[in-house]
């Protein structure tokens, strides 16, 4: 299902701070105007923040719904419903940049499933990999970024070496 991702200057500024990047291209309009790019540009991995605008994103608390993080108890959901300690983790992430993006653009984000495969892991038991492909198109219909994400589901908690 596609959703809209408005690209906003303050979001870009805060995102750059959160990855420790002090490049003025990410927050200073006047500086950016004098660069080759010519405008504020999102950092290379900013596009994943489209999750903020995905109405169904499962890793964001939903108002009036139980949250699986801690409150009075270590988790807000019934722990007996858990999957035996297995965890979903991010295995790979790839971006291709086709066109520059700037504040004011409104991207349409559409994710499609890719391939799935299994592997025997050293530390986490059987590993199940799922790929997804996300296309970001701007308000003119141009493909600006393509992302490929691979998630891995482990049967048990990843042991520490």
């Amino acid at each position, binding site marked *: 299902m596609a959703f809209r991702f408005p690209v906003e200057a303050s*979001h870009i500024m*805060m*995102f750059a*701070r*959160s*990855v*420790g*990047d002090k*490049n003025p*291209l990410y927050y200073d309009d006047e500086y950016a105007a004098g*660069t*080759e*790019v010519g405008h504020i*540009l999102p*950092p*290379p*991995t900013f596009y*994943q*923040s489209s*999750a*903020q*605008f*995905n109405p169904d*994103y499962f*890793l*964001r*608390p939903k108002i009036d719904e139980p*949250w*699986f*993080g*801690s409150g009075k108890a*270590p*988790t807000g959901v019934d*722990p007996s419903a*858990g999957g035996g*300690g297995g*965890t979903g*983790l*991010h*295995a*790979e*992430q*790839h*971006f*291709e*940049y086709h066109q*520059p993006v700037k504040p004011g653009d409104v991207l349409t984000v559409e994710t499609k499933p890719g391939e799935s495969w299994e592997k025997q892991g050293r530390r986490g038991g059987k590993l199940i990999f799922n790929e997804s492909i996300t296309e970001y198109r701007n308000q003119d219909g141009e493909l600006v970024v393509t992302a*490929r994400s691979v998630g891995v589901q482990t049967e048990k*908690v*990843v042991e*520490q070496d």
Partner: protein
Amino acid sequence: MALKASDLAVGSTYDETIVDNLTRTQLVQYAGTSGDYNPLHTDEVFAKEVAGYPTVFAHGMCTMGMTGKALTNWVGDGRLTKYGVRFKAQVWPGDTLKATAEVTELREEGGVHYADITVSTVNQDGTEVIQGSATARLDP
């Protein structure tokens, strides 16, 4: 400032310390901006008592973002055409990470110069946490 193809050779490298003593507060910042509020990354009680980890750990995408900073500091703004990584090991509060990028190929397509680059980010113990690759458009 962007890199010039004429200043590079296969094997040219760049490295940068991308975080020194990663804080839990930075993970809170990253959760807030990325929208990934998985409590594994910010909620010590959940991470230890429910998920069974020693403490919270960084979003892979936070480490990818910090590694991306090293790449853009090297190749210049708006010059990446591709950037991808594999997440090799978890990153924990207190970690200090260094990213090292290396040119593996220089090529020209339709009169435009490109560098293919590998990038590796390691922690203070030398454990690789990210292994990736990128392509950058260069000045001649």
